[in-house]
C-alpha cells in the first residue's frame, strides 16, 4: 500500500503531444515504435491521408467489401543483421504482416512483397532469404501473390529491405480492436517477452555477446484461431513488436480510454533475456517481440483462453499479468517486485543503454 508520503503530482495542466516541429529532420527514434513514431503518424501522415478507416489506428485496417470484412496491413523490414539467431529478415517480413492481420482476428490469406536491393547484395543470401519467406508463408497458410524489386546504388541500403502487405478475412462475430478494452478485462501475454530484441542486439557491433537467446519470430494466426475457438468475444489483440509490451499496453490504454495495471512479477521473461537486460541497462518491457501477442479478454473467459494458449506451441508460457481498470485512464501501471506501484510510460525514442 502506498504510504502517505507518495509525492503528489499535478497532472491536470499537461499538454501532450509535443509538436513534431521540434525535430526538423527524421531521427532514428522516429522508427522506434514509441512516442516519436506515434507523433510522426499523428502529425504528418494522418493529416495527409485522413480517412475514417485509417483513424482507427489498429495493426490492420478493417474494410468492408460486398459484405465481406477484410483486414489489410503492410509492414517494412530493415533489420540488421539480415540473418540472426532464430530467423532472418525474410521470415520476419512474412510473419510480421501475417501477425498484423491476425491481430484483428482475421484469417490471413494473401501477401504481396517488395524488395529494395543494394547493388552488390550476395545472390545466394537473397535466395536463402526468399526461400525462407516461401517456407514461412506456407507455414502460416498464406500465399505470396504479387511482388516487386528495385535496386539502389551500393552504399544506399543494407543489402535488402523488404516490404510486405497482406489481406485476410475477418470471421463473422469477431470484433477485435484496440478501442475495445473494458474495465474488468484480463490482460494475458502469450509468452516470454524481449527475446527478439535481445537476439538482434547480441549480434550488433560492439555488443556481440555469445547467447542462447533466439528470436521468437513466428506467425501467430494459428494461435489466434485457437483462441477464437474458445470465444469470439476477444476484445483486443496486439503483437508487441517495436517499443515492446510497455508501448503496446499504453496504446491500448489510450485507445480504449482505460487504465491497465499489471504485476511485474508475473511477466514471463527468460533468464538469459533478463540477464542481458540487466547487463545492458534495458527494460524487457520495452524490448521488441516478433512472435508474441497481448490479449485483452472478458474476465469470464480468461482462464479458458489461457488454457487454450498453454495448449498451443506458441503459447506454452502464456500468463495472466493484470487487468483493465476504470481508474487512471490512458495510463499503464505496474506493481513492482517489492510491492510498490510505478508508472509504465511509453518509450520516447530508441531505448538507450544506460551508462553505469
Amino acid at each position: 500500500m502506498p504510504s502517505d508520503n507518495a509525492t503528489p503530482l499535478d497532472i491536470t495542466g499537461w499538454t501532450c503531444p509535443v509538436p513534431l516541429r521540434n525535430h526538423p529532420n527524421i531521427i532514428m527514434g522516429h522508427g522506434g515504435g514509441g512516442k516519436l513514431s506515434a507523433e510522426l503518424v499523428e502529425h504528418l501522415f494522418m493529416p495527409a491521408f485522413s480517412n475514417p478507416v485509417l483513424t482507427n489506428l489498429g495493426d490492420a485496417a478493417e474494410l468492408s467489401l460486398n459484405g465481406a470484412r477484410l483486414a489489410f496491413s503492410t509492414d517494412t523490414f530493415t533489420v540488421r543483421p539480415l540473418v540472426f539467431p532464430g530467423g532472418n529478415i525474410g521470415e520476419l517480413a512474412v510473419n510480421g504482416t501475417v501477425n498484423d492481420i491476425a491481430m484483428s482476428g482475421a484469417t490471413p490469406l494473401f501477401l504481396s512483397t517488395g524488395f529494395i536491393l543494394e547493388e552488390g547484395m550476395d545472390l545466394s543470401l537473397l535466395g536463402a532469404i526468399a526461400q525462407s519467406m516461401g517456407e514461412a508463408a506456407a507455414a502460416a497458410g498464406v500465399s505470396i501473390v504479387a511482388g516487386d524489386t528495385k535496386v539502389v546504388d551500393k552504399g544506399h541500403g543494407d543489402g535488402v529491405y523488404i516490404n510486405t502487405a497482406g489481406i485476410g478475412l475477418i470471421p463473422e462475430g469477431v470484433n477485435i480492436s484496440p478501442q475495445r478494452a473494458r474495465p474488468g478485462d484480463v490482460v494475458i501475454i502469450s509468452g516470454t517477452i524481449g527475446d527478439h530484441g535481445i537476439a538482434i542486439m547480441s549480434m550488433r557491433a560492439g555488443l556481440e555477446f555469445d547467447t542462447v537467446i533466439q528470436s521468437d519470430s513466428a506467425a501467430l494466426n494459428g494461435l489466434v484461431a485457437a483462441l477464437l475457438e474458445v470465444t469470439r468475444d476477444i476484445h483486443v489483440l496486439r503483437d508487441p513488436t517495436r517499443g515492446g509490451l510497455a508501448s503496446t499496453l499504453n496504446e491500448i490504454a489510450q485507445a480504449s480510454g482505460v487504465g491497465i495495471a499489471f504485476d511485474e512479477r508475473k511477466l514471463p521473461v527468460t533468464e538469459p533475456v533478463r540477464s542481458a537486460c540487466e547487463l545492458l541497462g534495458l527494460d524487457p518491457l520495452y524490448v521488441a517481440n516478433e512472435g508474441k501477442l497481448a490479449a485483452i479478454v472478458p474476465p469470464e473467459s480468461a482462464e479458458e483462453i489461457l488454457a487454450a494458449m498453454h495448449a498451443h506451441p506458441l503459447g506454452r508460457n502464456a500468463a495472466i499479468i493484470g487487468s483493465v481498470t476504470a481508474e487512471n485512464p490512458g495510463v499503464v501501471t505496474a506493481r513492482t517486485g517489492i510491492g510498490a506501484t510505478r508508472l509504465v510510460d511509453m518509450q520516447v525514442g530508441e531505448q538507450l543503454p544506460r551508462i553505469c
Partner: protein
Amino acid sequence: MKYLEEFRDPDLAQRLLDDIRRTVTKPWAIMEVCGGQTHSIIRNGIDQLLPAKVELIHGPGCPVCVTPLEIIDKALAIAAQPGVIFCSFGDMLRVPGSDKDLFRVKSEGGDVRIVYSPLDALQLARKNPDRQVVFFGIGFETTAPANAMAVAQAKRLGLDNFSMLVSHVLVPPAIEAILTSPSNRVQSFLAAGHVCSVMGTWQYAPLVERFHTPIVVTGFEPLDVLEGIRRAVHQLEAGDARLENAYERAVTFEGNVPAQKLLSEVFEVTDRTWRGIGTIPQSGWKLRPEYAQFDAENRFDVSGIHTQESPLCHSGEVLQGLLKPNQCPAFGRQCTPQTPLGATMVSSEGACAAYYRYGRAAINLTESARA
C-alpha cells in the same frame, strides 16, 4: 537470476521497511548520491513504501546530468566535423546542447556511434586509420578506469587518430560542496556503491568526521538501498556519525588498487563545472600533460565555445536536493523526456526523468488506494 533475485525479495524488503518504521522517530533527509540508486528507488517504488519521516533527496550522481552544457556543445561541434567518428555511451546522444543533440548531428550526416566501452572506440580507431575517432569520456570514478585504459593503450599503440573529450567528475568533492552549502538539508548520505568499488571507502572517512554526517556505502538492488537507508536511519536516530559499508559484496576499504594506480597515471584533478550546480573546486579529472595529445579539446579547435545554461531549468536545485523534480515549474510542461531542458530529464538515471517515467500517476494511485 539467483544473484539478483535474492536482493529483490519482497518479504525481506518488508522486514527492512518494518525495521525502518520502528526506528524512525524524527524526520530525516537522506541523499542517495548516485543516479543508479535514484533509478532503482523510483523504478521499484521504494520512496512510496518508506515512512513519511524519511525523505530521500536525489543527489548529483548522474554523469549525464552533470556534464556541463559547454562540453555538450563542444561534443556537437566535434561530432559534426567531416572525417570524425564520434563515439559515446547511448545516454549522451539525447542530451540537449544549446540548439541540438547528438541524434540531430547524426541525422544531419555526422558519424555518431553508440559504443558500450571506450575500448570499442579504440578498436574503431585502429580499423579506420584515415578517420579521427573521438570518445566522449564522461562519468564518475566508475567509468573512469576504462577510459584511462583506452587512453593509455592509445599511447602505447602510438595511435594518432584517437582522442577523448574528457569531463570526468568526482563524488567526494560534490558531497563536500553540498555539506558546506548554506542551504544544505542533507543529514546523511548513501554513498555510491560502484564508485566505491573502484575508489574504496577510505576517501569518505574524513567527510564523516569533519561534518559529523553518517555515510553509508550502498548498492543498487531494492534490498541494498533499503539496507543503506536502514543503517543511515539507525545512525541518525542514535546521533552517530560513522562510515558504514552496506555493500560489502562489491566494496572494500582500499578499493581497486590497480585501477586507482592507472587513474592517477592518466588523469589529474582539476576544477570542474557541474551542470546546474556550478564550478566545484578539485571535483574532476582531466588528462595529464603527458597525455595531452589525446585530449580532443586540443586536437579540435573548440576553445571558442562558451555556453550558458537555460534559465528555465532548475536542475541545479534538483541536483542539490533543494527542489523535487515535480516542484519545478517546467516539469512535465516545457520539459519532458522528449523535450528535455536539462540533463536530469534526459538520462534514465536523471531524477527528473525517473520521476516522469515512473511517478507521473502517483497521485491517482495514492488516491485510488485510499478510496
